[in-house]
């Protein structure tokens, strides 16, 4: 359904052009739930924004193709792009309060999202909005749709955002850290809701998060990003049990939950290279315990996918001879 080919995003800055993602290739099938994980600065948010062309056009250069059901969104004129946003692909963000307009009631805002794509009366849009609020589990929707965002708690606001995003029944929902600002008990409510809605309506999900636990619970497939590249693309269970990239393995091993209490936590030494000084070859090389001299050759990791299995791709040149620990052993 969505197919991203060789997507590279660069920003024009005062210091010149800085590439933030390089040749991303991935796809999302209808109804699939794809988790995109990685640490701050790895390019996961920018990737999500680029799919909807929400990056500032003057500063952000997008190369490559973003094919949504065969149409290249990267080439679409802005007017046509507007018809895609909210209708085919919708997005929710980490902080619902900044995404909602404080001076309109939530019902009006949700209804407006619907009216942007369907020629219906205000009254009908309101009915739809109330329905949408009910579907995301907001109590007393017929009463609460006239209330304003500040009258809702954090968890309910995120539900309002989900209602708004799903009102046009998009084929793909991009969720960028939608539960990071929420408490753990409320996070559980929202992740369950997203999974159920996606199951019921067949909405595909691109779930951007740093939390591997949330990915395990919500997603079917996991993309690991590092320093602007996808380093691993695999079914969630396979990625957790038998990661094929040392970075994914390192991330999983560093989770305190899996270690014995009070024992030394494994960690990944060093830090992410800055976008202006990206090394040729494997970008993880300097932090990798398995690096060989050959890893600094550009071609060593040029392609994503050096493993035998079709649905488990990795950008590690040593994938064939490494056995890396996952969440168990």
């Amino acid at each position, binding site marked *: 359904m969505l197919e991203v080919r060789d997507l590279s995003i660069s920003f024009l800055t005062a210091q010149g052009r800085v590439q933030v993602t390089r040749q991303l290739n991935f796809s999302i099938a209808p109804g699939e739930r794809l988790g995109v994980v990685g*640490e*701050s600065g790895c390019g996961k948010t920018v990737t999500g924004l680029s799919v909807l062309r929400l990056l500032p056009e003057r500063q952000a250069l997008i190369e490559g193709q973003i094919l949504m059901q065969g149409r290249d969104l990267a080439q679409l004129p802005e007017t046509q792009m507007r018809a895609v946003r909210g209708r085919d692909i919708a997005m929710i963000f980490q902080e619902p309060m900044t995404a909602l307009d404080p001076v309109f009631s939530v019902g009006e805002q949700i209804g407006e999202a619907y009216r942007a794509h369907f020629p219906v009366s205000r009254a009908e849009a309101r009915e739809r909005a109330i329905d949408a609020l009910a579907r995301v*589990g907001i*109590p*007393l929707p017929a009463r609460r749709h006239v209330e304003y965002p500040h009258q809702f*708690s*954090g*968890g*309910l606001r995120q539900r309002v955002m989900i209602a708004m995003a799903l009102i046009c029944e998009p084929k793909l929902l991009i969720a960028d850290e939608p539960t990071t600002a929420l*408490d*753990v*008990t*409320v*996070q*559980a*409510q929202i*992740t*369950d809701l997203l999974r159920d809605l996606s199951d019921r309506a067949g909405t595909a999900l691109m779930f951007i998060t*740093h*939390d*591997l*636990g*949330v*990915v*395990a*619970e919500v997603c079917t497939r996991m993309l690991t990003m590092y320093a602007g590249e996808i380093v691993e693309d695999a079914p*969630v*269970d396979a990625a*957790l*049990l038998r990661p094929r990239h040392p970075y994914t393995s*390192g*991330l*999983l091993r*560093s*989770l*305190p*939950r*899996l*270690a014995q*209490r*009070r024992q*030394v*936590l*494994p*960690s*990944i030494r060093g*830090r992410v290279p800055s976008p202006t000084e990206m090394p040729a070859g494997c970008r993880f090389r300097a932090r990798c315990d398995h690096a060989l001299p050959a890893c600094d050759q550009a071609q060593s990791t040029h392609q994503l996918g050096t493993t035998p299995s079709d649905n488990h791709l990795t950008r590690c040149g040593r994938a064939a001879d490494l056995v890396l620990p996952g*969440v*168990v052993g």
Partner: protein
Amino acid sequence: MNGLVNIPAAAVAPTPLLRVQDLQVRFNVRDSGETVKAIDGISFDVMAGETFGVIGESGSGKTTLGRALVSLLSPSAGSILHDGVDPRSLGAAALRQHRRDYQIIFQDPHAALNPRQRVLDSVCEPLEIAGGLTRGERELRALDALARVGIAPDYARRYPHMLSGGQKQRINIARVLTLRPRLIVCDEVVAALDVSIRGDVLNLFADLQREFGLTYVFITHDLSVVSHVSDRIAVTYLGRLMELGPTEAVGERPLHPYTEALMSADPVPLPSSMRPQRRIVLQGEIPSPVNPPSGCRFRTRCASAAPRCAAELPEWRELRPAHWVACHFATRDGPPPRAAMPAAPDAAL
């Protein structure tokens, strides 16, 4: 409230490094005349050398608690004793001396450092305020502390914006170490850090504890972090303690329905086949601390709530050795069985 908690009866009880007795902290809301009961009657002891974990959601009062523990906020009622001494009884000079021993590290490593100050100056500052050392001595001690947290000396001349989040948090730790404190309150100290760095910083805390015999109060919303570092865990909800006990017991065999729900809501990074099946999803969200529910604070979201829960504040009971709970119906086997409670959305509003 039973007052003194968790002291094994048989032991010749040494003075706890920290003793919190029926602590209350209230804030007045400016316009409405309402009162926020941020901490509403909490008691516990922290013994020298232990790591005491405090877990809670936003609005549970855990940050207020941390600040009160190091005298950044004064109690509205109740008391906090530092090694038997009430800091409020000290004069200004004695208090300044006393404060060196009880320090706090905050969540946001960026906000805690002055962007216009070089790292070395920031690290020297607490010593400057404490007084008694020459500039040269202060710098030596600061460089020593920086080395101890793994910051190379050439970073000392840099400014905070030239450093990563993990490095900044290390510098905040160094800053506190210069004073050679006895107790450090760690308020969400790894929450702002990426996963791969988090482990390093947690390891550092553990090393420093071994080396300097430090006592930590580790405040966090992150169950995996608190379970990893703590000897004992206190579970807070709306300004009160729900449960307190040894880490393994609280994590694996909780007594309070809230703790049970909290543990089961935590997303576990395991393949579907290995994940525990039963998941308790709580309805609604934490109520406002301006108007907390009567009786048990948790009853509006509790699947086992009964009329008694609204009428009576649950007693603080030691159901297993050193394992305390505030729930009418908990037994030593665990929380009360959950009634098939219909969704009560109104309670959440």
